[in-house]
């Protein structure tokens, strides 16, 4: 399934070379030891790596990279393995580089509101370490208990509070990265900007294609004084969609603005009993945070807007316990699906918000066409949609139908001016859909950037950016101005 052609690699010679650098417990090469690394959060795709290593120091990472570079061994970096697009899927003829032992918080600087951490530090552990200073790390992907900051940077992870607090790229200051040839580079600075190109931004979200992240300096922000949530129920999607726009139009920037459709509401309510109205066509959760005075002012305005837009009921959280209860259903939406369906496939696209009702209706139509149920949770404030396709992998042919439906949903996102991935990354999962979103010239530009970092193409080959040949085979062709793209390629 990889796009690249690799020379034959002598596993024994590679392991011997690694043994000269690393203690025995840092090298795994027996099949049974490699099993835990065969997939990430996208478990439908599995591959046992040839060898896995667990270094402890940056110097070891540099040496490992040099060994692989000299031998032409492809390298896939891995954090906690919670990614949902297969970005950490190993290669059978490659080395899996685990950053799991880089678990230290190196420095907390409350005066400058920064923390320097190793890449294997968990997202939530950063906020926990910052808490005594009244600070926290803002991006909060759903997997924040388990996912690590290195992976967050590689994927430019988001979360439910992005609209107000931004993505990973907005919340980090500095990175140390080891390139394929073993060079250690620093991007960004302790300051708010750095000289030269914005390589910090380029590296963020680069899906392990440009280098291995070995240290991250994150920004910390003050914990808001208070937060409250409005829960509003709607009897149709158009009204809920309009309410989202109406809140934004008043000049309020909510900390979180989430929507769930009826199938998602039902599944979540059955699981965690958040008090969601199960007969509602959609619910909105709108969180406001800030000073007590500002939140009190705005919470009334938001409730009034919801009612004016046709909400059949609105409730405001009275305290943090109730706020957590309102959120519980949304935060547990994914496991809730696991209860009602043997398997589910969560995809991830972003659309301009104005197209929301149309896109949700079209998704239901596509689901019916493929005879699959789809539930939707949606970061409504920033247009990021997570359709969850329910299926049963034990039924022959069903996964193929799911993939087809997932692909059509992403194509729909592109058609309305959106993107195939808002926060999960392309990985292997959406590699074909990249051909829908980008022209051959754009993809070639990505490859040229990749080659500036990794001329031999050894880092995470086959991920994130498809080869043009693959797009021609896939047949998903991005048409610019009526001209057929990839004219230079033969059709298959």
């Amino acid at each position, binding site marked *: 399934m990889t796009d690249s052609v690799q020379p034959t690699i002598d596993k024994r010679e590679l392991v011997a070379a690694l043994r000269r650098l690393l203690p025995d417990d840092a090298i795994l090469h027996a099949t049974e030891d490699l099993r835990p690394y065969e997939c990430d959060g996208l478990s439908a795709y599995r591959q046992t790596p040839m060898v896995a290593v667990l270094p402890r120091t940056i110097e070891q990472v540099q040496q490992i990279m040099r060994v692989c570079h000299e031998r032409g061994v492809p390298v896939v970096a891995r954090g906690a393995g919670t990614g949902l697009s297969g970005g950490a899927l190993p290669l059978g003829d490659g080395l899996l580089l685990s950053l799991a032992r880089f678990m230290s918080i190196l420095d907390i600087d409350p005066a400058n509101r920064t923390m320097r951490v190793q890449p294997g530090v968990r997202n939530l552990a950063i906020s926990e370490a910052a808490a005594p200073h009244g600070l926290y790390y803002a991006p909060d992907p759903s997997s924040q208990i388990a996912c690590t900051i290195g992976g967050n940077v590689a994927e430019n992870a988001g979360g439910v509070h992005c609209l107000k607090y931004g993505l990973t790229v907005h919340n980090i200051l500095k990175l140390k990265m080891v390139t394929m040839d073993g060079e250690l580079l620093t991007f960004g600075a*302790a300051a708010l900007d750095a*000289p030269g190109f*914005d390589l910090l931004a380029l590296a963020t979200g680069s899906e392990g294609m440009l280098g291995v992240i070995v240290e991250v300096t994150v920004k910390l922000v003050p914990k808001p004084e208070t937060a409250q949530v409005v829960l509003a129920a709607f009897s149709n999607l158009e009204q809920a969609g309009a309410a989202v726009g109406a809140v934004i139009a008043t000049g309020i920037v909510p900390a979180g603005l989430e929507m769930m459709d009826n199938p998602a509401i039902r599944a979540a309510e059955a699981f965690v009993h958040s008090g969601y109205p199960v007969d509602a066509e959609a619910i909105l959760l709108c969180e406001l945070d800030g000073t007590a005075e500002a939140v009190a002012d705005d919470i009334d305005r938001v409730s009034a807007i919801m009612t004016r837009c046709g909400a059949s009921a609105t409730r405001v959280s009275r305290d943090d316990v109730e706020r957590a209860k309102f959120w519980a259903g949304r935060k547990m939406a994914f496991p809730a699906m696991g209860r009602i369906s043997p398997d589910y496939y969560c995809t991830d696209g972003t659309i301009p918000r104005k197209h929301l009702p149309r896109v949700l209706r079209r998704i239901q139509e596509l689901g019916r066409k493929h005879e699959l149920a789809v539930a939707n949770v949606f970061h409504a404030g920033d247009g990021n949609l997570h359709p969850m396709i329910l299926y049963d992998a034990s039924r022959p042919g069903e996964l193929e139908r799911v993939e087809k439906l997932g692909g059509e949903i992403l194509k729909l996102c592109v058609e309305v001016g959106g993107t195939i991935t808002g*926060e999960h990354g392309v990985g292997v999962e959406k590699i074909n859909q990249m051909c829908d979103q980008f022209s051959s010239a754009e993809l070639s530009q990505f490859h040229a950037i990749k080659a500036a970092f990794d001329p031999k193409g050894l880092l995470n080959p086959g991920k994130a950016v498809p080869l043009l040949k693959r797009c021609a085979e896939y047949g998903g062709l991005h048409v610019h101005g009526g001209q057929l793209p990839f004219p230079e390629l033969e059709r298959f």
Partner: protein
Amino acid sequence: MTTSHDASTEIRARAIDAVEQRAPLTIVGGDTKHFLGREAQGELLALGDHRGVIDYHPEELVLTARAGTPLSELETLLAEHGQMFAFEPPHFGAAATLGGTIAANLSGPRRAYAGAARDFVLGTRIINGRGEILRFGGEVMKNVAGYDLSRLVTGAMGTLGVILDVSLKVLPRPRETMTLVQSLAPRAAVENLCRWAAAPLPVSASCIEGGHLYVRLSGTASALAKARTIIGGDALEDADTFWLDVREQRRPFFGGDTPLWRISLSPAAPLDIPGEQMIEWGGALRWLRSDAPVMMIRSAAAKHGGHAVLFRSSIRSSDPYHPLPEPLMQLHKRIKAAMDPHGIFNRGRMYAGF
């Protein structure tokens, strides 16, 4: 909007011609940032005709416009809808354009509290050094498909290609704004700013100048009233003019011929260099008027995790930007070659090496 014109076809034709001739081009919008950086080589490529808003739906919080659109036109349009560019870009002249602002990644007083120009860039359409029109990012808030080349070209001073169109996230204007001024020594003022920044206070700008600390608050009336009791000081009359003059470098501090350095560093860091300072961004930006040796200024900035740019001087410097470590410079050259293999665009505008 006064005019709207899509000149991308003509601009692309010029670019293709230049690539064929291997003749470098200097990209110019409103020509208000000529003083910044190095002198680029090559014939002028004017972007001023490529102007107008392409898409703006206030409820989407996104504005897409052509690079040659005057910044002031866009700000007027946003204000009509109660919105703004939250990075408060400096203009440095009435003709300032959107493209130049993004190419230089210039941000104003709100930067430390809301983000820089690069933080608000959602997507771009550019012409690369092969004469191809490419679109990266988009008009949505979250987008991780492909490398973030929109942010890469932001702040690259036109060295990686011609920015044709830009999509930016915009934000609502704050409902209330108040500026407080108090007398305070710079060191104590920086300490206060760092302490306040670690608390949930609605600070939206700060400036330390001539023994005075200016703090702007933005938000709801009740939040401002409460913050005032913590921050203290007197309300400043005509505060909008004050912040505009800080942003546009029209305060008396910016007069005269002494070299003006822009030093970006850790906000809480002390900076003892001979010369006069004006401090912004909660301590993270130090404007320095100083004749001190370049090496001294650069090493002082670097010591505190920062860098120093010679922002304005009467004699144009050959190296205004902070030098890059050699491996990073080599990477910059490879990235330049990946985007602009024949070195057509703004050659030498940032560093002599590319």
